[in-house]
């Protein structure tokens, strides 16, 4: 028996089933067309071994932000490629590659004459990941190893995640943990105090003998350790036939060198390398909700998050989204997000460190630690092609082309009262003064085969 569905529902059926292609549409037609047959199909689905789709995805993102009057700016091109294949019925193998080609200019933080002191830079980061997954009828567990390298930073991360569907298959619990052994190239300042330490420059060599497991070479620079432990628990719950909810808790502990080795901060008459604590504990909790609107062939999305850490940064964001199917194969998603954070306890506005003092032992110009409010609005258009009896391009069961654009708006907030910092925040140069701070463009191709 072949039940006729609308094209977009037919497409959905083919995409979401985890069984073989020949059974995908059939099972979903049953689920969509007749309750009795659907129950049978669901029963079969529950008893058959789970099987992931082979998949491939490639994409490239462009991120660009500008500063007024040549006081810095940043352009990042971020290509990514992922491939996943089944090794038998219960094992999957994933491989991924990503890169960042970064170019821009940076000025001395809190330097009045920033234009003449802005220095250009460029760097490329390469990152590779290998993953091995095992899955059963209701559960899966994955292990992964990632290595990322660039001229001045080395990251080696090992992690795992596991998830299980609870009885009824309406609740999924997922746990994830990773440990990262990072190393940061830094200027060898010997026994100098933090206020005397010089910042790293692009001309300093960051050589390392023996590759990613190697040691420092004697010279002008050394590699400092940074250990990052991250854990996350996620609960996903189907609330109704058209609504699901996800709640997540996240914790992270960082130990080691966390300063930007290139960043200089004006402290008194000098411009030493920024100096921040070596330990940071972070946590957050988030909730996401999806609601499908069958009559409109659309869905609304809500996302809220609260964050806190031991440096005093408290933040949160709220995001609303709307997805709309257009015709047989187009999907449009629009979203808007607002975010706000409080400054770290040791972050001070421009000229405070110069005219007053450091904040305890610390001084920083890291804008990630400043008080700020920002907003993002954007849209994503997807062209979805389903192979049917004939694969797309002779290979894919499904092929999806994505194009996305985001615009980021910014509102800089004051960390200190005007009395403490009479020169204000206009010339601290950690942000620009224009309303549009950055844009993101992304093009991607995602296929299941």
């Amino acid at each position, binding site marked *: 028996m072949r039940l006729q569905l609308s094209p977009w529902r037919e497409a959905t059926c083919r995409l979401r089933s985890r069984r073989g292609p020949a059974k995908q549409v059939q099972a979903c037609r049953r689920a969509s067309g007749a309750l009795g047959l659907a129950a049978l199909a669901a029963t079969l*689905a529950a008893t058959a071994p789970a099987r992931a789709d082979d998949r491939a995805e490639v994409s490239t993102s462009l991120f660009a932000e500008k500063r007024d009057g040549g006081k810095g700016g940043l352009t990042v091109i971020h290509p990514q490629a992922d491939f996943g294949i089944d090794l038998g019925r219960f094992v999957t193998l994933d491989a991924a590659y990503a890169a960042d080609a970064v170019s821009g200019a940076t000025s001395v933080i809190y330097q009045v004459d920033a234009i003449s002191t802005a220095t250009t830079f460029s760097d490329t980061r390469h990152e590779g990941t290998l993953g091995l997954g095992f899955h059963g009828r209701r559960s*899966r567990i994955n292990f992964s190893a990632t290595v990322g390298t660039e001229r001045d930073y080395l990251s080696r991360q090992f992690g795992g995640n596991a998830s299980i569907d609870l009885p009824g298959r309406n609740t*999924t619990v997922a746990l994830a943990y990773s440990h990262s052994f990072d190393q940061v190239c830094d200027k060898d300042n010997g026994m100098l105090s933090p206020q005397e330490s010089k910042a790293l420059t692009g001309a300093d060599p960051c050589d390392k003998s023996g590759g990613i497991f190697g040691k420092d070479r004697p010279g002008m620079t050394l590699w400092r350790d940074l250990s990052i432990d991250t854990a996350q*628990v996620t609960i996903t719950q189907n609330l*109704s036939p058209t609504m699901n909810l996800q709640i997540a808790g996240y914790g992270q502990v960082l130990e080691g060198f966390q300063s930007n080795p290139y960043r200089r901060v004006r402290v008194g008459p000098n411009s030493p390398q920024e100096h921040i604590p070596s330990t940071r504990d972070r946590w*957050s909790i988030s909730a996401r909700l999806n609601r499908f609107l*069958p009559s409109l062939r659309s869905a609304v999305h809500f996302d809220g998050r609260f964050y806190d850490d031991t440096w005093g940064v408290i933040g949160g964001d709220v995001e609303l989204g709307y997805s709309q199917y257009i015709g047989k194969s187009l999907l449009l998603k629009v979203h808007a997000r607002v975010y706000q954070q409080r400054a770290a306890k040791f972050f001070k506005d421009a000229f405070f460190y110069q005219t007053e003092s450091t904040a305890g032992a610390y001084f920083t110009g890291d804008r*990630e630690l400043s008080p700020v409010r920002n907003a993002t609005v954007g849209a994503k258009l997807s062209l979805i092609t389903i192979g049917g009896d004939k694969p797309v391009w002779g290979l894919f069961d499904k092929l999806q082309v994505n194009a996305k654009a985001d615009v980021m708006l910014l509102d800089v907030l004051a960390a200190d009262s005007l009395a403490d910092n009479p020169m204000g925040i206009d010339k601290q140069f950690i942000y620009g003064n224009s309303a549009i701070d950055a844009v*993101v463009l992304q093009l991607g191709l995602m296929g299941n085969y």
Partner: protein
Amino acid sequence: MRKPFAFAFSFAIGATAALVALGACGRQAVRAAEKEFLADQVMVFDDDPHEASSDDHIRSNREGAAGGHGAGGGGCGCN
């Protein structure tokens, strides 16, 4: 006790309670035959992994409070 660990302990207790409650009601919440819309890709959290990782990458380099947006998946409960 350090604040994050105190939170983690509290969260673990809360999550366990929520898990029991959700598991209990989840058994009856949505029947298999009613998961047509939940299986749609617009109902899957982080249905485009590259978009999600790219967003996280940008935010972690612009915001001091980035991280912890949950895992992907969801929808039909088909692990």
